[in-house]
């Protein structure tokens, strides 16, 4: 067994006052609600507002996902909903694309048109809960357009809608690809961000550290990457779009992954709050205190959910949820016992949501803000992970920032190396995982066969066929007009905001494949990233 953190810091058997020499309460911790916000943003903690307890949805057709969302509401998911795209709509191709036919509705929601969003949201309110939709950067501009269009149709003022549907372009290099070039993703992200700021829309953009960590990154690396992603997107919003820093900070929220190494996870998030607050003030010269308070949502780690003895995952999920709750986050969507098999079954979803409810109302951990503060061990770990992350951050800065560091291959190599280390540690049993490399049982001794949700090929095909048939029934005149405008706008350079044209096209029921395809053409790329289908429109 190794007594080290995942970033290699040697853990001592006991911690005491000597380990916190030099720690100054006001400077380094501060009361909750006071800079540098190590202890959180609200003096009252969860007493004012409990964290949003939500569960990721998305499998099968939009109508299937709608039923699941309604079921989740019955299970007490009322503060906010969270849906993830399938791989087809994440890739900005349509369900009837030849490459899509067997993958529609697999691992997510087939959200490539406003029609799909309308079906997803049928009888579900757009207000009174946060609307979160995840799944890559390029389709995110469409997601924002869906929300704007549906609010419009329902006669709801957009100022009453809140949540997060857009996403930073850094999902691509960290394992959630949308097949689009990075510069196009960055442009679309900046357009959407500028649009929400200028129109006073309370929709945030996910800056997703989770992808990096779930691909194998360690806690210190994840912290450094999270901060450097935020630094990059805020700098661009200020320098390239002329927003003030305080305006720019209305855009991002950070989605962090929390695993089972309880104290290390708590330390990581506390360090993130402190490091961001300092970066906001010292690097960006934040004028508003709000800009120093990074909104943090937690995803408990899907990677730690084992295939073997899946019921063990209930225990893992509970430990991770407890860490997420104790560290004081805004929202948690937790992994499920069947995470290694499929999207959550109703049983697994209820278990996970109930895990959150149990932590929230039965344990008492939500009664007190930052209950682990002052622990010699937790404060030491917070300092250690911060120091290790600053070292990586300096290295990234020296390479010219995160985009440059990715281009040199440094970040990819770091991630790959770390994934190999984790695999080796498991192989050598330096890290033990019950049921996987420790206390393994033969498959026939599995006492309980979990129900596994899946979508049949016929289901994927049906989504494809519906898309193809529906396309023929659309009123084509407004679609043609809107994509021509979009094409013309997309030729006006990166600084010209495409959101109004995208919203018009979405409202006319143009699809993801069509909208992103036309933007691609305007930028000199081919319409279809797979070079299989042709643009169906005359654009000049």
């Amino acid at each position, binding site marked *: 067994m190794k007594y080290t953190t995942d970033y290699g810091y040697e853990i001592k058997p006991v911690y005491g006052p000597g380990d916190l020499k030099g720690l100054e309460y006001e400077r380094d911790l501060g009361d909750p609600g006071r800079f540098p916000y190590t202890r959180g943003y609200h003096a009252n903690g969860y007493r004012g507002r409990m964290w949003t307890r939500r569960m990721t949805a998305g499998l099968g057709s939009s109508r299937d996902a709608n039923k699941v969302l309604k079921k989740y509401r019955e299970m007490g998911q009322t503060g906010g909903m969270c849906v993830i795209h399938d*791989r*087809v709509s*994440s*890739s900005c191709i349509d369900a009837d694309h030849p*490459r*899509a036919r*067997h*993958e529609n509705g*697999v*691992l997510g929601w087939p959200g490539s048109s406003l029609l799909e969003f309308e079906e997803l949201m049928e009888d579900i309110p757009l207000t009174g809960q946060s609307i979160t939709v995840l799944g890559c950067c390029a389709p995110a501009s469409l997601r924002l357009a869906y929300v704007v269009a549906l609010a419009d149709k329902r006669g709801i003022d957009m100022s009453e809608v809140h949540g997060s549907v857009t996403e930073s372009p850094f999902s691509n290099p960290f*394992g*959630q*690809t949308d*097949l689009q070039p990075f510069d196009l993703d960055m442009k679309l992200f900046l357009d959407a961000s500028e649009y929400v700021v200028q129109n006073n829309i309370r929709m945030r953009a996910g800056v997703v550290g989770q992808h990096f960590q779930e*691909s*194998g990154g360690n806690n210190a690396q994840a912290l450094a990457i999270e901060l450097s992603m935020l630094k990059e997107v805020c700098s661009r919003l200020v320098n390239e779009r002329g927003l003030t820093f305080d305006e720019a900070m209305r855009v991002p929220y950070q989605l962090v992954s929390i695993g089972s190494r309880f104290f290390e996870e708590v330390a990581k998030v506390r360090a993130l709050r402190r490091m961001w607050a300092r970066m906001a003030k010292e690097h960006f010269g934040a004028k508003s205190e709000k800009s120093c308070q990074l909104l943090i949502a937690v995803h408990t780690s899907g990677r730690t959910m*084992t*295939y*073997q003895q899946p019921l063990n995952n209930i225990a893992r999920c509970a430990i991770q949820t407890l860490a997420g709750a104790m560290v004081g986050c805004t929202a948690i969507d937790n992994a499920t016992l069947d995470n*290694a*098999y*499929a999207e959550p079954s109703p049983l697994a979803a209820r278990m996970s949501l109930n895990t959150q409810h149990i932590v929230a109302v039965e344990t008492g951990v939500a009664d007190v803000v930052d209950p682990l503060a002052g622990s010699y061990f937790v404060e030491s770990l917070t300092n250690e992970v911060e120091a290790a992350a600053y070292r990586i951050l300096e290295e990234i800065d020296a390479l010219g920032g995160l985009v440059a560091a990715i281009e040199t291959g440094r970040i990819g190599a770091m991630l*790959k190396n770390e*994934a*190999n280390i984790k*695999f*080796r540690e*498991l*192989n050598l049993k330096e890290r033990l*995982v019950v049921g*996987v*490399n420790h206390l393994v049982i033969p*498959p026939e001794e599995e006492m309980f066969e979990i129900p*596994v949700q*899946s979508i049949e*090929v016929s289901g*994927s095909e049906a989504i494809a066929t519906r898309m193809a048939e529906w396309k023929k029934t659309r009123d084509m005149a407004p679609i043609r007009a809107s994509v021509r405008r979009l094409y013309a706008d997309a030729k006006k350079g990166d600084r010209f905001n495409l959101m109004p044209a995208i919203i018009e096209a979405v409202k006319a029921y143009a699809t993801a494949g069509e909208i992103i395809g036309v933007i691609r053409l305007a930028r000199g790329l081919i319409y279809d990233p*797979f070079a299989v289908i042709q643009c169906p429109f005359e654009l000049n």
Partner: protein
Amino acid sequence: MIGLDSHTTGAEVVATLLRDAGFEVVYLGTNQTPPMIVNAALEEDADVIGISSHASNFTLIEELMREVKEQGLTDVSVVCGGNIPPKQVQKLLALGVAKIFLPGSPGDAIVEYLAGRERRR
């Protein structure tokens, strides 16, 4: 990687493991179709086709098996790894997949198995 799945960590870790063990590995990356994989296996004169799968895309593996048969690649084994539910495991083995490595498979087991699969030349 078959289909649109982009969970590459497992495939890349196994590719590194095999290279370190002295195998020649041609990692095709993401967004591969069954015909693309079979063509690559033909071009590279591969002994084994390895597919990494993350709880999805099983129908594409089934298509791959048909493609392998149609192209007459009878002496090439198809090996899969990843989060594959037990029901699918049975189905894929019945279709001729030679071996499935589930999550948590020790590196040595993968290396030893593949060492035994090399075609005698």
